[in-house]
């Protein structure tokens, strides 16, 4: 069913009784051309683009929980392409372009809101680093502006200019950055994929990967039985090491928990996405009025979707330090997501040494914004067996070759990227 204002009025007149499911609940077929493990943003968008752009529709997406139960449903919804390195900028910019046309493309309003992402600098060194980044973006045709303190004071008068421990000196603004409604992304891609014949199978957990004598992947064992496939694509985010291990593969990834928070609904006060450079705090306000924010990870390995009070407090300390006016607001809910922190902080979209096995992983806390491009490039890789040119650097063997894409410059310690 096509969604529009017309369909809403028409359905309303018939008591909203005739709406149909956004996606089917099929039983798995014995065999698919492509099986995608993981019904998160990346798995669903991969299925969508495979069907829509590359003509492959005999696909199953297997999700162990409900679709969107992973990180796509628990992130702080920030989208941007303000990266520094050659391996990342073109990829994230491609993603941002796809976001810009997404609603029309999949006929679902995911509320892409290009309200601007502001990254604040609190020292000369940091300002120089942002200048370097802004110039790198500009070189690639990506929008970037460097604002000084005065301009910031006009744009965001509520920030802490006068009593800051770390003064606000400048800000790197990407106006085209912003937020997207997280759940709608999963649902929109799911609906779009389902309409094109993709089987979305929820509550179907992959427990093992079956390989033939040559070592080629032939299918997966699940709680719903064996399902065969020609190609197997892993898009399991924080669980990547677990699923890759089923094929005997060890990854440059450690799993960590990141918390996120939402405040009570309040009237609009924060118009942009703001990132605090003296800490790690980032914040935006949802269309319902909740301030959505987060900061550092909890630093220890965790597969539990919940975090620690010390990190909660630390987040609020940074928040109130940056925006003193938050103090009398109230935090409503905290949750966590488990993330695939990679060894250089950048993702992997690649074939693996194992035939028929494709990998999409290592998104750390930045993979939501990548959802469209990740799906598109992964679909490209699966369909054509070669990397899309914007994802050509995101290779699994880059560490062995010494071509790390280390945006933070922190080296091989995943929890500090």
């Amino acid at each position, binding site marked *: 069913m096509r969604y529009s204002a017309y369909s809403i009025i028409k359905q309303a007149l018939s008591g909203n009784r005739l709406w149909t499911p956004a996606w089917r609940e099929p039983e798995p077929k014995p065999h698919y051309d492509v099986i995608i493990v993981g019904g998160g943003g990346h798995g669903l968008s991969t299925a969508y683009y495979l069907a829509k752009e590359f003509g492959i529709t005999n696909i199953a997406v297997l999700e162990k929980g409900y679709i969107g139960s992973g990180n796509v449903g628990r992130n702080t919804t920030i989208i941007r392409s303000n990266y520094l390195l050659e391996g990342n900028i073109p990829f994230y910019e491609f993603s941002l372009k796809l976001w810009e046309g997404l609603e029309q493309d999949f006929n679902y309003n995911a509320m892409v809101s290009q309200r601007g992402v502001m990254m604040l600098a609190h020292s000369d060194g940091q300002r120089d680093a942002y200048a370097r980044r802004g110039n790198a973006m500009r070189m690639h045709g990506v929008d970037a502006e460097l604002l000084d303190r005065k301009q910031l004071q006009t744009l965001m008068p509520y920030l802490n200019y006068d009593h800051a421990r770390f003064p606000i000196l400048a800000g790197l603004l990407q106006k085209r950055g912003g937020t997207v409604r997280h759940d709608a992304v999963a649902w929109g891609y799911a609906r779009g994929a389902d309409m094109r014949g993709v089987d979305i199978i929820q509550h179907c957990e992959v427990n093992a990967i079956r390989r033939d004598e040559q070592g080629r992947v032939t299918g997966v064992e699940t709680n719903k039985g064996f399902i065969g496939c020609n190609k197997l694509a892993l898009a399991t985010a924080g669980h990547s090491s677990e699923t890759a291990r089923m094929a005997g593969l060890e*990854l440059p990834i450690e*799993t960590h928990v990141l918390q996120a928070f939402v405040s009570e609904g309040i009237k609009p006060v924060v118009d942009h996405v703001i990132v605090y450079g003296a800490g790690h705090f980032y914040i935006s306000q949802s269309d319902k009025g909740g301030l959505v924010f987060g900061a550092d990870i909890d630093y*220890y*390995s965790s597969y539990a979707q919940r975090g620690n009070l010390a990190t909660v407090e630390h987040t609020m300390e940074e928040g109130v330090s940056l925006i003193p006016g938050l103090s009398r607001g109230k935090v409503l809910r905290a949750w966590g997501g488990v993330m695939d922190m990679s060894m250089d902080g950048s993702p992997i979209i690649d074939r693996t040494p194992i035939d028929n096995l494709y990998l999409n992983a290592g998104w750390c806390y930045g993979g939501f914004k990548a959802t469209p491009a990740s799906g598109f490039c992964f679909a490209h890789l699966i369909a054509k067996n070669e990397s899309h040119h914007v994802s050509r650097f995101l290779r699994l063997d880059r560490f062995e070759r010494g071509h790390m894409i280390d945006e933070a410059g922190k080296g*091989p310690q995943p929890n500090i990227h």
Partner: protein
Amino acid sequence: MASLITCPHCGTRPKEEFSIRGTALGRPHPAVSEEDWHRYVYLRDNPKGRYQEYWHHAAGCRRWLVVDRDNVTHDVFGVTDAATFGRVGE
């Protein structure tokens, strides 16, 4: 775990006193193969469940500890000084 860690030297302390480094791996012999070095520096078993991890008691005794824990339930099974970890009977 993640709220309180019992340091074998200092007693029970809040997470804030520690910094965390990742899997408690042994550093390979300097002469082993490229592949082994790559594995040590970049590849991680990253199991879901029982896990040994380096924690540094930065605000306490400044000893590196190995925290043996479950990364799903967050139960802690034991905390040992890293210098003696895995060296029993050495």
